[in-house]
């Protein structure tokens, strides 16, 4: 159980934390049938230890376990993720609760503990499959999102928050979303005017856009600004419009990711 088997199709690493050996074996067999290989842990403490060795993408977590129950284990995993958010290796494990649906286990409690989804026990194959694919879809969209806005930069900005006060992140995002399109349009209008003041204006607007984009982790926008500056430096203003279009498209992607980040910051 040391090496994490990796599913060839999805490359998802899965851990099942479940104290009943019967349920654990059934869950592992169900995952096998669905085409996923997985590891097992028999309580929350073991799950935490396993997660430290292998960066699992998905954990199927029983809520009631000896030593450390599923809620506490999830809480600790989320705490650890928060503490490591600024590191390059930062990641978030998708946690699916397996609940027995009693007064002690409720979907509400699962979500409050930081779990992402829940299925009831005994676990049925179609429900398990659906939950896994929801998790994988989320993972894919997170990866796409991270290519647009660097999560490490965002995590760093989140840490600027003072206790009891609203953090600066949302304000920075609003300011950026207001200024960035304006700066890009300045570049566009200067390029189309193509007069003696054009170059200076393009450099100025591009430097501003590059700076604010880097500050918010919008790395592709910053790279495009570099390209635009280089193009202008080579006196090839004619090559600028396609770059401006690409920057506009990238800014739209950045906008939707930043809007998403803003709503997350509110809760």
């Amino acid at each position, binding site marked *: 159980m040391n090496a994490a088997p990796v599913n060839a199709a999805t490359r998802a690493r899965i851990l099942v934390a479940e104290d009943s050996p*019967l*349920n654990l*074996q*059934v869950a592992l*067999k169900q995952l096998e049938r669905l085409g996923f290989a997985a590891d097992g842990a028999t309580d929350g403490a073991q799950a935490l230890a396993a997660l430290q060795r292998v960066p699992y993408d998905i954990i199927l977590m029983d809520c009631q376990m000896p030593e450390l129950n599923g809620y506490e284990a999830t809480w600790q995993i989320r705490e650890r993720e928060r503490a490591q958010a600024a590191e390059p290796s930062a990641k978030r494990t998708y946690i699916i609760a397996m609940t*027995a649906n*009693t007064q002690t286990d409720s979907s509400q409690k699962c979500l409050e503990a930081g779990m992402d989804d829940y299925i009831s*026990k005994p676990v049925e194959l179609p429900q398990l499959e659906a939950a896994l694919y929801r998790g994988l879809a989320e993972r894919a969209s997170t990866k796409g999102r991270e290519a647009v806005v660097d999560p490490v930069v965002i995590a760093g900005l989140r840490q600027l928050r003072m206790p009891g006060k609203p953090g600066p992140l949302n304000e920075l995002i609003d300011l950026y979303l207001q200024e960035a399109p304006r700066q890009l349009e300045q570049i566009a209008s200067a390029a189309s005017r193509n007069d003696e003041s054009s170059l200076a204006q393009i450099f100025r607007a591009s430097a501003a856009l590059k700076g604010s984009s880097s500050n918010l982790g919008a790395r592709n926008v910053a790279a495009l600004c570099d390209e635009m500056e280089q193009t202008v430096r080579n006196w090839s203003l004619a090559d600028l419009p396609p770059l401006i279009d690409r920057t506009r498209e990238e800014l739209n992607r950045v906008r939707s990711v930043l809007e998403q980040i803003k709503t997350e910051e509110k809760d």
Partner: protein
Amino acid sequence: MNEVPNFDHGAIARLQRLGGDAFTLKMIQLFLDYTRTKIEEARQAQADGNLLAVEHAVHPIKSSAGNVGASRLRDLATEIEALAQAKNNDRLPDLIQDLAKSFAAVSAELEKVRGSLSSVAMPPDSK
């Protein structure tokens, strides 16, 4: 069948479909060993007056029982868990007794299933 009301043979069929006969035999063995231990733990905990430990002992019986189709056992475990959680000790000794009886009945039923499966397929790793 009268002996074991609420025994759902469909659950065994599901295990067979999921992993075949050898897997099913292994699961039955795991269930028997594990549940026996947990019922003993519940009995001991109740005798010690430790209702939290009773709750923890019977909790995993619920879903394990569901996996092999022992519906009555699952219902009893659910009831005991709720009472233990409510710190209501009055009926626990009787109910844990019932749990043990129900387990004995389920064991007999599972032995029969095991017999019919073993004759078809002997798992190489069965102990």
